[in-house]
């Protein structure tokens, strides 16, 4: 069931003004429709401009194949989150319900929240659009994952595997690189309890 978690502001890069946005836990038919009817056609179209998946990083569309709806409907496996602004889904995130365990030496073996998928809408991405619209959707969702981790008494610890195109963004968010994940074939990142606290307070 979709539940309103709180409000944030996203900066409209086109006007320079902040706009009210809402964060939800649980996706509904509107979110699925926004993805299938608006996000997906744009992602698929742009992805076709590149010869290989590696090249898709140049357009920030390496996630064009992600099955948001199929995965989000599997509520036993994923907690789903969305941020909405201007009557449109501006960002989506899936967090694994199953416990995952930290790999960083300082917190090795402790439980953390594992982010399975996280994305901002294609029109908000600098390399996708010449005039990206909203700034802050990804950051708001990452903060939501940290808050969810705190809610579960995991002290804000989170982890995820990053697409190559997004690695530098996670560096900027203060997440630590923990090496290449051989199963997911992507770089694995973690945020510590201490860094999570700083992130929420920044």
């Amino acid at each position, binding site marked *: 069931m979709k539940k309103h978690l709180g409000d944030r502001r996203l900066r409209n890069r086109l006007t320079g003004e902040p706009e009210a946005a809402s964060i939800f836990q649980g996706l509904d038919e509107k979110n699925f429709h926004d993805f299938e009817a608006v996000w997906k056609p744009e992602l698929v179209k742009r992805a076709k401009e590149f010869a290989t998946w590696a090249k898709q990083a140049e357009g920030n569309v390496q996630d064009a194949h992600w099955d948001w709806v199929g995965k989000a409907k599997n509520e036993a*496996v994923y907690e789903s989150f969305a941020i909405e602004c201007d009557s449109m889904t501006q960002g989506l995130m899936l967090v694994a*319900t*199953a*416990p995952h365990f930290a790999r960083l030496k300082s917190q090795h073996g*402790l*439980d953390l929240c594992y982010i399975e998928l996280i994305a901002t809408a294609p029109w908000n991405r600098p390399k996708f659009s010449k005039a990206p619209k909203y700034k802050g959707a990804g950051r708001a969702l990452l903060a939501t994952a940290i808050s969810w981790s705190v809610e*579960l*008494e*995991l002290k804000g610890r989170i982890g995820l595997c990053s697409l190559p195109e997004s690695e530098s963004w996670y560096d900027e968010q203060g997440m630590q690189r923990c090496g290449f994940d051989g199963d997911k074939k992507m770089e694995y990142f973690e945020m510590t309890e201490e860094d999570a606290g700083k992130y929420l307070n920044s």
Partner: protein
Amino acid sequence: MDRRQMTLNLNDKEMDLLDRLSERRGMSKTALVRQALRLYQSVTERIERGEKVFVEHPGTKDKAELMVL
């Protein structure tokens, strides 16, 4: 998160295990039981999908199947 309360009856050995694990993992007994429930749910889902759950030794890469009753 909406919450409901229940009474959990454990014997001494189980309570001791709960105490030690919650201490070791740095979380309350309630949080530990919730995490254990999530883990059990995940394993059950996978078993029901016909998947197998393994634990792998980091050095030898030997795998042992996790048997779920």
